[in-house]
């Protein structure tokens, strides 16, 4: 009798164990699927944010150019029209023609600057290194911050046009952020090697960001500039490295994927 009881008990326990295993499989699978769906949703949200940032940035840029054209170029051309009207009324007075010529020269320079901002000619015709040198010179002329550029390797390869433009825009955005937010007085740009990769290094003496702070700021609402940088990094297959700060200097490295060096 006790043998039968034990066998029955054994059968019951085996059945319970089997049901327990099946229950575990079902619960575990549900958990994995929920986690995967959450991850997918998070990535989708991130993609949407990046796209929205890119669109907003484009719209902001258009607005800025429209404002400059309207307020600056448009206003100057209106003054030119006024002076020409006066010049026609008083042909013997050369002052109006002289003023008109000066205004037109200023307008031509303004249009050139706007055009250069839209698409830097130096980048298109002379390459990334020359474009960065030119950028440093332009910023120095403005007088807000001291900036220099050094090419540490003569055999620096020129990336393709798309990658060069991405790097140029990233450097532009980062330097703008440094000027606006870090209280830096000095920025050093250099093209050098880092762990076998070709990198553009931006070093400054202001209050910098660590990699963790960069990630946190990237996910904040707004932060359009950082999101654009992130977009460009992903599209051009670049990497952004935040080395540990040395003394009072913070650095950011924009590294290219491995390129063959030309000697």
């Amino acid at each position, binding site marked *: 009798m006790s043998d*039968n009881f034990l066998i029955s008990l054994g*059968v019951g326990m*085996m059945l319970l164990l*089997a049901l327990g295993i*099946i229950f575990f499989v079902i619960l575990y699978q549900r958990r*994995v699927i929920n986690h995967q769906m959450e991850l997918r949703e998070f990535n989708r949200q991130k993609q949407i944010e990046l796209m929205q940032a890119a669109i907003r940035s484009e719209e902001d840029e258009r607005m800025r150019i429209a404002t400059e054209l309207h307020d600056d170029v448009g206003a100057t051309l209106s003054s030119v029209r006024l002076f020409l009207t006066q010049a026609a009324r008083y042909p013997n007075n050369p002052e109006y023609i002289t003023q008109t010529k000066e205004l037109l020269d200023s307008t031509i320079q303004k249009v050139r600057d706007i055009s250069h901002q839209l698409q830097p000619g130096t980048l298109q015709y002379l390459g990334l290194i020359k474009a960065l040198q030119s950028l440093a010179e332009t910023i120095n002329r403005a007088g807000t911050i001291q900036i220099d550029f050094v090419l540490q390797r003569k055999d620096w390869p020129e990336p393709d046009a798309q990658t060069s433009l991405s790097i140029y825009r990233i450097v532009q955005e980062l330097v703008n952020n440094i000027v606006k937010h870090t209280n830096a007085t000095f920025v050093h740009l250099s093209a050098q090697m880092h762990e076998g990769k070709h990198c553009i290094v931006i070093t400054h003496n202001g209050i910098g960001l660590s990699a963790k702070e960069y990630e946190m700021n990237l996910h904040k609402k707004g932060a359009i500039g950082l999101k654009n940088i992130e977009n460009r990094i992903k599209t051009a297959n670049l990497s952004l490295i935040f080395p540990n700060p040395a003394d009072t200097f913070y650095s950011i490295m924009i590294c290219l994927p491995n390129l063959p060096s030309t000697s």
Partner: protein
Amino acid sequence: MIDLLSQFSPLVGILLGWRRQGLLWYYLWFCFLCDVAAEIEVYFSLPKYHANIFLLAEFILIGSYFTKNIFKERRHQVLCFSGVLLLSLFFIGSSAKQGFYTPNYTNAAVFYVIYIAFCMVSLRKVLNEIEHIKLEKSPMFIFSAMFLVYASGTFLMLLFKLKLSASVQHQMIALWDVHNVLNMLKNLSIARAVTLSLRLNQNVR
């Protein structure tokens, strides 16, 4: 009553899977035919000719099904199936030794341990691959889960079958009823698995 339901339960899967005749469909046919043979043997007081044949054929069919579905690489399938055939030969040998018309329940218990192992590996594969968001839509999960329950319940009964037969009649009948219920659930789960496979194939086309 439970006995009758258990004997006719394979017919559900046979009818539902008529258009797609895979290994499981043949297994259901085999189960049904063996149940009919068992009834005939009881009616005419014949020895249990079908018992060892059923246990052996079930092992080869189920072993082949699991081998085909668990292992994707050809050489793993060949290795696993060779193991199945080797165990089958061992079963034939031990059955011949004790008399082929005497059901070899003790060695058959080994088959049920193998079934339990196959089911666990199969469930692990279902978990890893996550082909279906709803597990109840996965034919492999339905079959493996139910077969695990069936094999777990039947394993000890087979191992101690002789002790059970010698014991109190009503207790043996109670345990055999449990086996019949498990058998019925197993056959219905195979029917469900066959239906789901049919639907999946139609969606793919």
